């Protein structure tokens, strides 16, 4: 039961990331492709924020000194995350590889592609490494999403969180997101192929310092 659940969880999550973080695409030669998202790194790093609400909260706190965002809004997002115990209920651990949080998504991509949700394109460099990965959302997928997704209660959480991540970090490239995540000690110090530990306590401490309240 657990495996099959995990399978579907990964499929829908990755699809939603591709869907929400992609930009409109128009090619008169291929009208079937309507949106596009560049680089796998971006998917992996956004996935990390989605799977670790405490890290998302920490990154929000790190934005405060810039004063570009509404403090109160950030505060209320973090309060909600902790009130709903998301760091425990929603957490899906991720391992650290050479370039930060990473989990193989080839099967998920293959699934999504074979059923016509996305089209995956890539190039290879001279060392034959795959580079420049592009993920296109098909017209079929967009229609299905627009039609069905709004009726799905439990998936709403993903949609809302994606919106939030997009609001604050939507402009970040995969590399920028990676660099941002490396700023965090716990993340940085995690060894290769180890799970990245949670930072709830740190968030609580900073929150208390910033807002004078306990989470």
């Amino acid at each position: 039961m657990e495996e099959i659940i995990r399978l579907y969880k990964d499929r829908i999550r990755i699809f939603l990331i591709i869907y929400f973080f992609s930009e409109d695409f128009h090619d008169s030669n291929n009208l079937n492709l309507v949106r596009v998202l560049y680089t796998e790194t971006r998917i992996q790093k956004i996935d990390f924020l989605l799977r670790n609400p405490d890290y998302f909260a920490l990154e929000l706190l790190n934005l405060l000194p810039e004063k570009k965002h509404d403090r109160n809004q950030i505060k209320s997002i973090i309060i909600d995350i902790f009130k709903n115990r998301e760091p425990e209920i929603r957490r899906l651990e991720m391992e650290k590889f050479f370039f930060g949080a990473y989990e193989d998504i080839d099967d998920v991509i293959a699934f999504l592609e074979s059923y016509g949700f996305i089209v995956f394109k890539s190039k290879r460099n001279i060392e034959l490494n795959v580079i420049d990965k592009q993920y296109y959302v098909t017209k079929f997928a967009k229609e299905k999403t627009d039609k069905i997704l709004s009726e799905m209660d439990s998936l709403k959480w993903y949609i809302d969180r994606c919106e939030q991540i997009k609001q604050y970090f939507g402009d970040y490239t995969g590399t920028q997101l990676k660099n941002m995540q490396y700023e965090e000690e716990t993340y940085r110090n995690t060894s290769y192929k180890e799970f990245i530990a949670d930072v709830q306590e740190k968030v609580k401490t900073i929150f208390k310092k910033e807002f004078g309240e306990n989470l």
Partner: protein
Amino acid sequence: MKKLTIELKKELEIRDLVIDDNELNQILELNEYAAELPIATGKRILLEELRFVGIKNNGDKIDYVQKFTSGINILIADNLKGKSSVFKVIKFALTGRDSLKSDVSSWIKTIMLGFSIADKSYTIFIDKTSSRMSSTLYSTNIDQVNIEYDDNVIFKSNTKSDYEMQIQDFFFNRFSYYPLSWTQKDSAKDSIELREAKASWSTYFKSIYLESKDTNSFYGNQGSKIFQILLGLKYTKIINKLMIKRDFIKNSLAKKDGINNIVLVGKEDLLNELKEIEECLDSIRTNSEHVKFQSLKELQNSLFMEIQASSMIFSSSSNRHYQLLAELDNNRSIRDSLIKEKDGLEKEVVKLKRKINDLKEYLESGYFFSNLTIKMCPSCNHEIDMPSTNEEHECNLCQKPVVSEIENKEQFSERLKQLTETKIIIETKINEIEEKISVLQNNINDFEKEKLDIEKTIQNNDYAELSQKSEQISKQLNELNEKLKQSTEREDELISQKAILNYKLSLQEVDSDDNVGKLNKKPDVLEISIDYFINKRFEESKSILTSLEDLMLNEIHAFGLPSITKIHIDKLFNIEYTQNGIRIKFGDIAEGEQLRVKLAFYLSIIQLDIQKNYGKHPRLLMIDSPAKEEGDNKYLEGLKAALVDIENRYADKLQILIGTAERNMSDIVRSQFIYEADQYVF
């Protein structure tokens, strides 16, 4: 005193005894009454070291040295190995009364006992080498005493009886004891005379040394008198004096013709003598230091009333404070364990929520990805246009059997339903616990508030300040007392001479009918006055006696006797007990339980002194074989627990020497001296 006289006269008038001030004063001699107070002297005897040497009849040398510490000292050795003898040697040194077995007594040649009173060191040295016992009391530490030439000699005596007297004076002075008297028939067979007997220091010593032989008598013949002095309650002295006077007068009235036996001295001479005595008394009493002493006494008296009031507040606040601490402790620990339980359940809910989310997600995303057809080959990236297989349980791509989605869905929905139900149950439980926690928290807040208030009350209580003041006055009084010692002794002497003269004069006047009437009136006046003072004492000492009853009951319960539920101390200091709902006397208590009750009594008297500052017990107890009582295990455990408790609370304030053969009593206190099986103590 004036107020008392007025009250007393009213009491007399009610009984048709109209009497003027002068006459009343003549009968009661109230002006000779010095107020006494139950305030603790704060003094204690601390035994420091005992040494004795000698030679046994088998030629073995005795060279016994034993140091004692403050707190509880336990001497463990088999029966008949000399424990009791050690205690008896101490008794001998401290009182001059030798109750050792005669053979053991003859073995011992010299005894040295080092002790301190109020941090001042003293050493007793007794030499029995020659037929005449010689004894010396030094104001020097035992290690520094030089028998040959020590200047710090308080007294020296060359006979046993002289030593008894002098050591009695010494302790009486140190602890402000006085010899309460009573009357008894002259021991001469044909005599009808009454004799005045006095409680001696060795009688007092019965309240220090609880010998194993008298476990089942409460406090000896003169017991309640010792109790009275140990408590030092107000009016005890005057009650005692009046009682003796009453006995004498009754006696002389009873033997009317006894007058003949008295050599009549001329009335004139008696009056002259009386006049002289009164003049002497006057001159003593007008002495400036004497006056100062009296006014200090009065000051101390009024301070005492204040102390008593504030002590009541202090002790009730302290009790409540203690109760609150216990309540807080209890409530907090229940709250904390509930919080723990709640945390555990909340973790469970988190797990359930995860599972529920997963299942819902599965069901919804399953719907999202349902009815799909393969459009692209995942292997070669070519588009595929393939009809779906007819077999529902077969994969479109690889034709392997698959579990139908519908089956999966049903199974998952069922699981979702179960989990949701469990979650609701647990959440309800959490809510219940939260309610309980909130009630407890409210209690805790209330208790904490009350505790703070009480702490303020305790802090603001002037008890300590008053006690300090009273202590200073006591000190001054003691100093003055030393100075006035001679004149006080002289005063006492004169007072008793005066009483004798008055008595003789009254006998001379018995002749006339009028005078017989007067003499007859006297016992009545005395009787009523005695009653009056006894009631007064009881009334004014109620709080002290109640404290004592409470302390005693606590100790008795600690000793494993829950069947005793109340202690009653009456105005004549008889103690009674409610056991199993029936009121009984000490003698009615089962033999196996008497010792505990007795121990409880003495420990309470000492605690009363330490905790509440009342009473005059020297805070030294010597208990021989307390475990001998045929007790259940509960008693031994209770005794041990009580001793540990006393050690923890009062180790620096009292001293208890315990001799026992019960090896179970080992390792409960620091200061213990264990002799192996069959080994002699000396």
